[in-house]
């Protein structure tokens, strides 16, 4: 896509410094990595060929190993599904996990559960890989020696008597955030048993500031639940509620529901942010503002609101006017907010101080949004993040003789100024429950290997109070223990199975008489129906909010501002050893495997640095070195650092391959952002792997007879405004540049079903859930950073990110591109061995064992959706990771082309099932992995011959368009054009993809 049309993929393309089109196969791409030439390779192969080699090529002898005592209802080859719940900090995700012969292989959302409604995100999808991670800690360790759980139980029983006598003085317990009735009950039992013990909870990325804000304004730390489906106008203040913030799956679902133009109205999203978040990418109006300036913005907003609507109870704060905030912009925003009382919503991000959260609560309350678009809940059975600082002080003072840490890795991710590692050395006995032998575990005297949530019993409470049980899918692979096991031992002194502990807790929720019946129902459904609680109605002390807001307004500081952002892939670092998440290209930067410092084009100009240059970033006394990446649309003086990479943390082989640890820059007083940072170029370079120019769809030169046709016919991404859509619903349609006729004899598809798909660009938020879901479903390998850099990433489904507008203030559009399943497939016509052919259901099928690897098909694919196995990426799969493979999908070897097949294994499973039960296939029964995972329900899939199917109706949508239609490939996958909904007063050019004056 050329930038003359207003869309560009990279800054190089915008400035014209990159070659016109990036070839899919770069020069030398077929050579082996050591640069052995093809000729040498052949001679090497020849030398090693002998008859002896041939004789060794025998079929492996395989044993059939059936169950000795076959369990009821397990039919080998037929998957079963279990409802369970994934605890994620204070969040809980209701899941449905696919199990093949007792091995979990794929995770989906639980349709019954309010936290997911059947959808998921990339973390949920990828968490299955963590279960089978061969780098997980596999044993208990005591003072560096291998131990076992029983030894710890004995050791604790000895220690315990001393603490029982002293009421627990000298004992300390540090844990992760949770919302779990069993853990809460055991925590209370622990405190009752050891009343003098210190307890603390720490989350590197949590809702600390939100709780502090609610405490400030309402006196109680309420949890916030967004009801985006009820919000017509949304203002995000540095909040990535569609990406890394709490409950993003439900938020995305609600946001997409309120954004559906077919309803007749569409929400409008205003975003004020320093970094470029997923939420910012979906904004209708986006204001770039340093994170430190947000409190001042809030005070400007309240002043303007007061002017417009004097009847509102608003916090009062005075601030200097920010030069970045255009008066017209602010007026339009306030106009929107005041005209949508009860249907608007303001959201504050985790990075923002308590004062902003308090003020946002006051504003939502004043605008009548509380109870409508936002609800507040008492945190039930929850451990809120607090108490780390007093704990570390006590540790330093020698008041702690035994410290038990359940999860988290405070040595590497606690604020740097606390020097947790040093303080830990003052504690004689430390116990750490952890999945990896990480920095904290290495320092601890006892390391207990942790069980994955798919291996352990537990329970959760969602934000609205909905109760659910975490039921295990498999017995612990490495005999790990869960927090319930360890806390249970500490709190009761006995080592009982977690199953019994959870059931004991649930005796309070279920009737005595019918406990077994109801318990089975809870496990079966994944939640206790009707356990949601009534939302709280918090009070408000407006003066305290005003005071706090006044205090929070920052004096302008020199230098750059460092903004800490939870990694959209690795979150706080818990997924650092997850290959799927490491490799999935970031939604905005399209970088994989690394976390360079993101700087604005303005800062890059000022400092004279370019992509990949190493810099030293200093904040206070702390310095880290890492490369930079220039990200369009950042606030000018903000440097965005992604948390979560732990190359030196001892976490595992994947984590140690790349990335930079930015936790050393984070201090107690600057957990979200830090001012006064300095940048110093070091003059060295670092190789970064980005996919932003991979899969560039070429625009062929216009043939003579096509000259003079509408140029816009070739637009890959089509977007317009809601206003435009209302005037002309068919705005996305283009006149074809030449008559509809194929060069080939066209095949007729007359048998039902005929599969087709639509992808709604307006609903898609770009979150990557589909990419990881596809990877999980289809056994797609990871290839490593170097191979990604050479354009060999294997993701069958890629999400293209296009910028529009100027580099400083670029807007973003996402486009998910799987195989289009063309009816006139260009790939099929060039395959010399018939390895890619059409089936009678309209699928462009791939016959792996026919493929000889010519790559002609990929070369001829205009959509660039075919992936080639340059190496045997799956050859050295560790035994435990092989357990994660989907048994229904072939694992591909070297030299084979592969691509999206609309999840043909799911199609066949559905067809067989319908046939066996003697009924016709119903619409929506077969869902592709990407469709099922999508939290925005952007993907529809089904039979296009059935006029009543959802996909057929979706294809009748006036926004429906065909990608590269003029090639007449007749793809089965089509797109629905994207809409923006700018405020009528501000309907400016930055959303309009027409050529802007600046480029040529």
């Amino acid at each position: 896509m050329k930038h003359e049309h207003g869309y560009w993929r990279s800054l190089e393309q915008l400035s014209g410094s990159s070659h016109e089109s990036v070839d899919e196969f770069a020069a030398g791409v077929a050579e082996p990595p050591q640069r052995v030439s093809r000729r040498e390779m052949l001679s090497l192969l020849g030398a090693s060929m002998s008859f002896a080699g041939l004789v060794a090529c025998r079929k492996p002898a395989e044993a059939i190993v059936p169950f000795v005592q076959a369990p009821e209802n397990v039919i080998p080859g037929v998957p079963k599904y279990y409802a369970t719940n994934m605890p994620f900090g204070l969040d809980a995700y209701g899941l449905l996990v696919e199990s093949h012969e007792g091995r979990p292989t794929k995770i989906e959302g639980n349709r019954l559960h309010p936290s997911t409604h059947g959808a998921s995100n990339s973390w949920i999808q990828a968490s299955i890989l963590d279960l089978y991670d061969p780098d997980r800690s596999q044993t208990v360790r005591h003072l560096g020696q291998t131990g076992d759980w029983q030894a710890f139980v004995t050791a604790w029983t000895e220690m315990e008597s001393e603490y029982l006598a002293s009421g627990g003085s000298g004992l300390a317990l540090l844990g992760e955030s949770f919302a779990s009735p069993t853990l809460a009950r055991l925590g209370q039992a622990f405190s009752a048993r050891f009343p003098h013990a210190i307890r603390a909870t720490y989350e590197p990325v949590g809702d600390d500031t939100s709780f502090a804000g609610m405490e400030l304004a309402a006196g109680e730390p309420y949890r916030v639940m967004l009801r985006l489906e009820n919000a017509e106008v949304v203002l995000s203040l540095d909040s990535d509620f569609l990406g890394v913030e709490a409950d993003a799956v439900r938020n995305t679902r609600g946001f997409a529901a309120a954004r559906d133009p077919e309803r007749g109205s569409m929400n409008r999203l205003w975003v004020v942010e320093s970094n470029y978040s997923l939420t910012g990418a979906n904004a209708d109006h986006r204001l770039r503002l340093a994170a430190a300036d947000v409190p001042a913005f809030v005070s400007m907003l309240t002043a303007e609101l007061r002017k417009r609507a004097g009847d509102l109870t608003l916090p009062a704060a005075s601030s200097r006017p920010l030069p970045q905030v255009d008066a017209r912009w602010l007026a339009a925003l306030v106009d929107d907010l005041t005209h949508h009382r009860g249907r608007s919503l303001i959201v504050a991000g985790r990075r923002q101080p308590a004062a902003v959260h308090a003020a946002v609560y006051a504003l939502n309350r004043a605008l009548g949004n509380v109870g409508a678009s936002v609800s507040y809940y008492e945190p039930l059975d929850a451990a809120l993040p607090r108490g780390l600082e007093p704990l570390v002080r006590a540790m330093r003072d020698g008041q702690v003789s035994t410290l038990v840490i359940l999860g988290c890795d405070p040595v590497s991710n606690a604020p740097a100024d606390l020097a947790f590692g040093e303080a830990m050395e003052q504690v004689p006995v430390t116990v750490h429950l952890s999945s990896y032998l990480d920095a904290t575990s290495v320092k601890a005297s006892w390391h207990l290997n942790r069980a994955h949530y798919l291996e352990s019993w537990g329970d959760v409470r969602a934000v609205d109070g909905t109760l659910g049980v975490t039921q295990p899918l498999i017995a612990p692979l490495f005999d790990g223990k869960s927090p319930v096991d360890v806390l249970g031992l500490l709190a009761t002194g006995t080592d009982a199975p977690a199953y019994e502990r959870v059931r004991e807790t649930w005796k309070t929720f279920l009737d005595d008489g019918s406990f077994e019946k109801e318990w089975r129902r809870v496990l079966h459904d994944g939640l206790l129906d009707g356990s949601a609680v009534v939302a709280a109605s918090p009070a408000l002390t407006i003066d305290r909010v005003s005071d706090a807001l006044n205090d929070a307004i920052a004096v302008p500081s020199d230098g750059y501002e460092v903004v800490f952002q939870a990694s959209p892939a690795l979150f706080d670092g818990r997924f650092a050893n997850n290959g799927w998440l490491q490799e999935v290209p970031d939604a905005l930067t399209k970088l994989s495997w690394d976390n360079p410092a993101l700087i604005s084009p303005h800062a890059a100009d000022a400092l004279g640095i370019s992509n990949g240059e190493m810099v030293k970033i200093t904040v206070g006394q702390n310095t880290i070195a890492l490369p930079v990446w220039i990200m369009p649309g950042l606030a000018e003086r903000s440097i965005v650092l992604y948390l979560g990479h732990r190359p030196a943390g001892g976490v595992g082989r994947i984590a140690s391959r790349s990335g930079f640890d930015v936790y050393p820059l984070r201090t107690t007083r600057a957990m979200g952002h830090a001012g006064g940072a300095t940048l110093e170029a070091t003059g060295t370079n670092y190789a970064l792997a980005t996919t932003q120019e991979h899969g560039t769809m070429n625009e062929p030169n216009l043939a003579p007879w096509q000259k003079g046709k509408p140029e816009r016919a070739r637009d890959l991404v089509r977007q317009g405004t809601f206003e435009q859509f209302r005037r002309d619903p068919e705005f996305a349609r283009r006149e074809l540049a030449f008559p509809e006729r194929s060069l080939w004899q066209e095949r007729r598809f007359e048998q039902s079903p005929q599969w087709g798909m639509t992808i709604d660009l307006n609903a898609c938020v770009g979150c990557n859930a589909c990419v990881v879901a596809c990877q999980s479903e289809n056994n797609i390998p990871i290839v490593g950073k170097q191979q990604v850099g050479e354009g060999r990433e294997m993701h069958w489904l890629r999400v293209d990110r296009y910028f529009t507008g100027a580099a400083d203030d670029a807007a973003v559009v996402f486009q998910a591109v799987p195989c289009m399943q063309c009816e006139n497939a260009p790939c099929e016509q060039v395959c010399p061995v018939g390895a890619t052919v059409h089936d009678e259901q309209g699928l462009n099928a791939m016959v792996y064992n026919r493929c000889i690897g010519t790559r002609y098909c990929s070369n001829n694919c205009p959509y660039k959706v075919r992936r080639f196995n340059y190496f045997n990426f799956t050859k050295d799969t560790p035994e435990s990771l092989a357990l994660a493979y989907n048994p229904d999908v072939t694992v591909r070897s070297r030299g084979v082309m592969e691509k999206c097949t609309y999840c043909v294994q799911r199609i066949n499973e559905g067809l067989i099932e319908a046939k066996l039960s003697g009924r016709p296939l119903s619409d929506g029964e077969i869902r592709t992995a990407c469709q099922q995972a999508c939290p925005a329900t952007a993907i529809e899939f089904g039979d296009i011959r059935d006029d009543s199917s959802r996909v057929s109706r979706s294809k009748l949508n006036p926004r429906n368009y065909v990608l590269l239609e003029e090639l007449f490939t007749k793809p089965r996958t089509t797109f629905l054009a994207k809409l923006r909904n700018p405020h009528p007063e501000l309907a400016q050019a930055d959303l309009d993809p027409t050529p802007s004056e600046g480029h040529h």
Partner: protein
Amino acid sequence: MPRASWPAMAMVLLALVATGCVRGCNSSRPPIHLNPNMDNQPRYDPQQASDFFYDGKGMRAPVEGTVARGELQQDRPFHTGTDSAGNFLTEIPPLTPAQLARGPERYAIYCEPCHDPRGLGQGILYEYGGVPTASFHDEQRSAYPPGRLFDVITNGSGLMQGYRYPIPPADRWAIVAHVQQLQRARQDRAHATSAPPEGTR
């Protein structure tokens, strides 16, 4: 024969000679497989062996106490043969005539080879191997409550394997009903005449 196929035939001949084996020669080794072709998959197929697990099985039993979708089974007595206190049921749960009709049929498939059509424990296995098989008509077993019979079918007893996997619960109850019918018939006959009629054992 077209000339072009001569090289191909030569190749085939060469391959036969090289592998040292043509049809008919015996070998205990697995067959030759020149083109691996992704035939041997690194994934785990059903009933595949695994070096990862201590018991060598790739298939894992579901964790005890878990409930899969579609297996709600809230009616525990029906699925276990015991009531909530753990006592065997003394009544067969209500079954439809169609379900009951499957009893003799399922009995013939799964039980008859050992227990014989009359339930005397003198089936094929006893005749050929002398394997001691229980009779339903001895004093001890004729007093079994239905729940106990169900439990034996489900979990096995002595040498007998549990049949929970191949026989669904409703069919198990139907078999129990059939076994009880056999027992009653035997008792009725014993009451009617002290000597068995001719032709029966």
